[in-house]
């Protein structure tokens, strides 16, 4: 799965580069507008190590931000799964907060908190959190009638049990959503770094843009793509392992 993700990314990247080079050739553009392969390779030699550490820096914030957004999404999703007044209030509040574009909120966050680690983490979590919340709410608000009915009529149903049943029955969906949200967390972190941070690959892209250096940007995109593919591959593999283990511990079938 990990290997497949990497080569699929490489195919997309090569198609993208090929498209740019075709435009360059057709319109006879200079290396300033679209860099040629020799310049990209030369630039890679200069910035590869630096960008690798920048991406790892970004990834560390991404992982943490995604963790926070998973906790937030499950907390709000579980609390808001009921069709009671408080449930709908939590849902409305969560939706309204998300209605504000992050790029509009980000400068306020940076003015209040400076341009250090915390604002990057906050923005990554905020961008990643909402799609997760929608999925969690959808799953948690949908009863698994066949199973839940038994516990309800025997008077043994508790909220923890309800959550467990619904999570277990939708484990496949949940792991897919969590793995997919890694991209959003990464994008959120890069946006934060781009707007106002002094570290990470988003910050390096910003500097490259100041200098109109598309070669550096192409290298940065390559590094981001590879690292996020590996991270997503790991998450998906972990999801598979959890599914298998949970099924075995519950003496059930592998989902």
């Amino acid at each position: 799965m990990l290997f497949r993700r990497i080569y699929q990314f490489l195919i997309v990247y090569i198609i993208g580069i090929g498209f740019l080079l075709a435009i360059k050739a057709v319109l006879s553009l200079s290396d300033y507008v679209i860099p040629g392969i020799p310049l990209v390779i030369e630039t890679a030699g200069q910035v590869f190590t630096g960008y690798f550490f920048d991406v790892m820096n970004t990834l560390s914030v991404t992982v943490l931000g995604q963790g926070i957004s998973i906790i937030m999404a499950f907390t709000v999703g579980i609390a808001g799964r009921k069709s009671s007044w408080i449930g709908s209030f939590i849902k409305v509040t969560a939706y309204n907060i998300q209605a504000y574009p992050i790029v509009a909120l980000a400068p306020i966050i940076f003015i209040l908190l400076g341009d250090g680690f915390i604002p990057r983490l906050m923005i990554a979590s905020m961008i990643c959190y909402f799609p997760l919340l929608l999925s969690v709410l959808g799953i948690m608000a949908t009863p698994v009638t066949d199973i839940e009915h038994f516990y309800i009529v025997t008077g043994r149903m508790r909220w923890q049990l309800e959550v467990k049943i619904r999570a277990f029955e939708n484990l496949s969906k949940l792991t897919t959503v969590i793995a997919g949200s890694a991209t959003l967390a990464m994008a959120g972190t890069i946006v934060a770094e781009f707007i106002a941070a002094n570290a990470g690959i988003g910050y390096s892209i910003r500097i490259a843009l100041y200098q109109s250096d598309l070669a550096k940007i192409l290298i940065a995109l390559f590094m981001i793509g590879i690292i996020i593919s590996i991270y997503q591959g790991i998450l998906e593999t972990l999801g598979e392992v959890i599914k298998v283990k949970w099924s075995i511990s519950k003496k059930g079938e592998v989902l």
Partner: protein
Amino acid sequence: MRKRTVISLIFLLVLMSATSLQAKDVQLNYRLKWLFNSSVAGDIYADVNGYFKAAGLSVTVKEGSPEKNAINELELRHADFGVASADQVIRALDKGAKIVVLAQLFQVNPMQWIYRADQPEIKTLQDLKGRNIGITFGGNDETVMNTILAKAGISKKEVTITGVRFDFTPFFMRKVDVWPVYRNSQGVILKDKLAKEGEAVYFFNPADFGVNFVANSVITSEVMLKNKPAVVETFLGALLKGWEAAMDPANEADVLNAVKRLDTSTHDAIMQQQLAATRDLIKPSPSIPIGTIDMAAWQQTEQIMLKEKQIKKPVHIETRLSRLVQK
């Protein structure tokens, strides 16, 4: 019925002749470097006050922004003329772009540093020692400040360098002493804000200490200059006439009205101060015609970029500067 047909025919003829007259105007696109405000007053004035039209040109003046790059647009043929900073031009030449500089708009670079007047005035470069200096990493100001520090023999340990962005809070909170600004836009706004708090400011201008880094200039493609030299000359003539008129204090009210139509968010008083500041940078002396290319300053800019490893090899900038308006 017959009368109606005759009227329709006459109307059609008038319309056709008007269209053919319009078609005689040469259609051009001109991409600015920055948003519509007082710093591009001459470009706006040349358009609004019919300088282009009088020269037989129909010019679409397009607003710039950080994401828009006139050099890219020239190569992609989306623009015929544009405004770019010297570092953009030199970087593009280093990467094989075929462009030429027609006129240098700013005789003094607006990129300067602001600091509070309650701090000792920077009279020599040695006075920078011990200060917390803001720079935009990757920006022009980083290159210029590195050159200044190297020139003064000041090591990075003797000053504190802080990376800055659009948010002025660290300067307001005195976390950074010396803050990079565009003298004729942000500089005016910051000076005004601090004046309201009873604080006066100084500006640190690298040119006063012998570091001349050229700012915005009018550019076009080599192909355009080669194939349509008359159009280039006509455009430049009309543009510079517009700039000369816009920088004439006698036309201030007219110019402000023209700018106000496009820049609706700036207060009148601030706009007036921005225009005055722009005037000092574009035409620092009545004897210098607007657009004059300062060859020595361009060569110094190239040397700075070479030394700072912003370019890999000399681009011989003197060969890319038009001789239409030269010092």
